[in-house]
């Protein structure tokens, strides 16, 4: 009877809260990487465009 046991655990508010917190952490971590990555590309992009006078 593993399935009802798992269902009971999944139905607990503490389990759902933990899952929500873990998901939020993943979103923040990915978002941080995404923001940092975007900034890194933008630093290079702006620097590259600044050299347009040397075309």
């Amino acid at each position, binding site marked *: 009877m593993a399935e009802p046991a798992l269902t009971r655990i999944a139905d607990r508010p503490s389990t759902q809260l933990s899952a929500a917190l873990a998901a939020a952490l993943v979103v923040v971590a990915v978002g941080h990487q995404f923001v940092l990555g975007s900034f890194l590309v933008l*630093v*290079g992009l*702006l620097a590259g*465009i600044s*050299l347009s*006078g040397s075309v």
Partner: protein
Amino acid sequence: MLGGSRSGRPWPERARLAAAFTVGNVLGGTVAAAVAAVVAGFLSPVPIGLLLAVTTTVLLAFFVLDFAGRTDLLPQRARQIPQEVFHHGIVRGAFRFGFEYGTGSRTHITSVAPFVPLWLLLSLNLEVHMALMVGAGFGAGRALPVIAHLGLGSSQWDTNTDRQARMVAVLGSVSSAVLAGYVAVLWL
């Protein structure tokens, strides 16, 4: 350079040139960033405070040279990329020209701008994929004005460039430096 006036070359050829040039630039920027990342690795035993102090002082000195109109004193290879790169066909030439142009170290440097991403790479010892992102962005930024040149036609481009090149160089290098500083704060 790529000879692209609006009426000079048919659209498909200009598109091929633009694509080859862009890919070359992005690749060139990425390779240059990879080299900088390797150098940064060798610098990693240096305490971060000392490294930041030295590289930031050098960058600020380069900014002073730029604002004083002495970009000729910036470290650079002060000659043009040879036209021989086009000897093996115009599209292949555009790729090779783009690659050398995208490294940012193969021809004249008219602004302090390329030293900003270099400062970022050497100071922070970023992870390799992050360094490559900076390089790819730099290459794409290098290609963008030339792509606009191909799209707009040379006469309109030259008029716009003469009027705005200095403003673009100053705004671009300052905003790039501010953003790089913010990235450093996020990273450290």
